[in-house]
């Protein structure tokens, strides 16, 4: 049975039971959700079976990190790594709130330790080292913990001699850790440079939104860079740019389609194709991949020709 068929039958996949992992803001609990793109009311349960993609217009609703893990990996193959790493508030930072308290609140609100989950898993039998960022934890911001976990996940790729995949979703660096968060950009990028020397592939997957220091480090360094449709991807914030240039921004500015047009990303994928696209990429980029695959399934989907239909 194909992965998609399993999904449709609702086997451990995107059913309403695990919506708890999704921040309330992203998915209202009522039966109908208004699509923020086309304005249509879409039935919740149908949305879930369609991987939170609008039937009418194809808008990709934001989903939680756990959902990407389910979407991408062979069922049961995920083993979380580097758990228990938490922020120490080395600056003793305080704005309207103490950073320590923000961390506490975010931990209890999201059930996560910080804004990224890392682990080992397999796609159609092909082993990978995976990191998935979680926007619900302080806007997916990168502080010491996020940088450390991602660097370790890249190192796992080197140590286990497997490809690395990072699914980004982040507002950028975490101001509350100031210069230490800036340095995580160098840490993760330097580790990726090591991975590259080892001849192991890195696939970067950009989802809405990916901005600031995350974009200006590991997110833009993929051997191949994929992005979800209409995801906001950029370095500087639109508000800052508008203030600086004192003019309106072009239509579609900093959207996936804009980046594709300007040559900054390789492909825009539809969520339902993510797993197959990455599987095929791994087979191309990594000669060892074929040896890990089991019996070819009877209904292997083709790499989608294009998403800009």
């Amino acid at each position: 049975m194909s992965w998609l068929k399993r999904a449709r039958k609702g086997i451990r996949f995107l059913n309403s039971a695990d919506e708890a992992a999704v921040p309330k803001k992203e998915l209202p609990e009522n039966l109908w959700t208004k699509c923020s793109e086309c304005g249509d009311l879409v039935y919740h349960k149908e949305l879930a079976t369609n991987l939170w993609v609008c039937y009418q217009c194809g808008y990709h609703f934001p989903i939680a990190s756990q959902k990407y893990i389910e979407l991408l990996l062979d069922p049961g193959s995920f083993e979380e790594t580097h758990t228990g790493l938490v922020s120490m508030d080395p600056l003793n930072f305080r704005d309207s709130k103490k950073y320590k308290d923000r961390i506490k609140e975010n931990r209890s609100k999201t059930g996560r330790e910080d804004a990224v989950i890392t682990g080992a898993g397999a796609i159609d039998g092909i082993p990978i080292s995976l990191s998935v960022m979680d926007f619900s934890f302080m806007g997916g911001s990168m502080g010491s913990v996020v940088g450390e976990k991602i660097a370790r996940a890249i190192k796992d790729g080197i140590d286990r001699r497997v490809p690395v995949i990072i699914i980004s979703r982040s507002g950028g660096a975490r101001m509350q850790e100031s210069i230490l968060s800036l340095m995580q950009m160098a840490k993760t990028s330097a580790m990726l440079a090591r991975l590259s020397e080892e001849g192991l592939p890195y696939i970067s997957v950009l989802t809405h939104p990916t901005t600031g220091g995350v974009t200006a480090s590991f997110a833009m360094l993929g051997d191949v860079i994929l992005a979800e449709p209409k995801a906001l991807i950029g370095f500087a914030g639109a508000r800052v740019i508008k203030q600086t240039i004192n003019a309106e921004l072009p239509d579609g500015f900093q959207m996936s389609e804009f980046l594709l047009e300007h040559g900054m990303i390789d492909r825009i994928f539809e969520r339902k194709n993510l797993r197959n696209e990455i599987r095929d990429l791994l087979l191309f980029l990594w000669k060892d991949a074929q040896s890990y695959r089991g019996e070819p399934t009877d209904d292997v989907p083709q790499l989608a020709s294009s998403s800009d239909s």
Partner: protein
Amino acid sequence: MVDPKRNGGYLDFEKPMVELEEKILALQESANGNDLDVTAEVDQLRDRVQKLGKQIFSSLEPWQRVQLARHPRRPYTLDYVARVFDSFTELHGDRLYGDDAAIVGGFARLGARQVMVIGHQKGRDTKSNLHRNFGMPHPEGYRKALRLMEMAARFGRPIVTFVDTPGAYPGVGAEERGQAEAIARSLFVMSRLPVPILVIIAGEGGSGGALALAVGDRVFMLENSIYSVISPEGCAAILWKDRAKAPQAAAAMRITAEEVHKLGVVDKVVAEPLGGAHRDMDGMAETLRTLIESSFDELEAMSPQALVASRLQRFLNIGVVHQE
């Protein structure tokens, strides 16, 4: 040298020092005209300048450091290049799009050494600031820097960078041409270049736009420079919803050289002449020349493999996490 008598542009907290210095000049001028011996008075005043300077500069607030780092008279990359090195030949362009004047680069002679020098460049007046885009590079600036650094590595020449930027330029063209990619690529490539890289945070170390030139074996910060993930104004606007709270944000983010050093991000805080680097550019340059030469002496003793391994480790070590 800056003529303290003729120009404005001083910060409020430096004014007592500047006023005393003006007095000294006035005294000397009047003495010249009519054969008076004012040596004793001048010495006394100089003594007061020193004491006052020490008093003011030993207890600066973080926000005052920010002002010094952005001082309109602060030496910029080309000021250092002219004083630290024996010669300099600028090289231009990224071979892809253009030549960004917000970053300068070229080869320089330092005694017996040939080195690649790269740095952000600000302007001194409106016209030159427009030309230099206030030291805020576009992607082509970073790609030029990277081209020059890769070239230096190819020919076995060490690299010195001077960091002084409010940040990478936030504009439409910059985004279209991949500001994020240009910075990321710089971090990626710099981390593996098999030649010694020295980084001097000379003024404003503004976020990713600064870091893109700052992946080195040794990273030094001048005493009155700052290094931060976002400008104090930007941080204040987001966390305090009020840009005027920038001094608070500057303190909270711990962006002074002393604090950044304590956090383990830089190797050394380089003392500036009393009153700041702008009051004695030659003195500052002399300090830097000695530091650059001794650092290259150390780093050149390492094999390229050991060099890149320790550079990677240097950045892996930065950050504070707790294992529960």
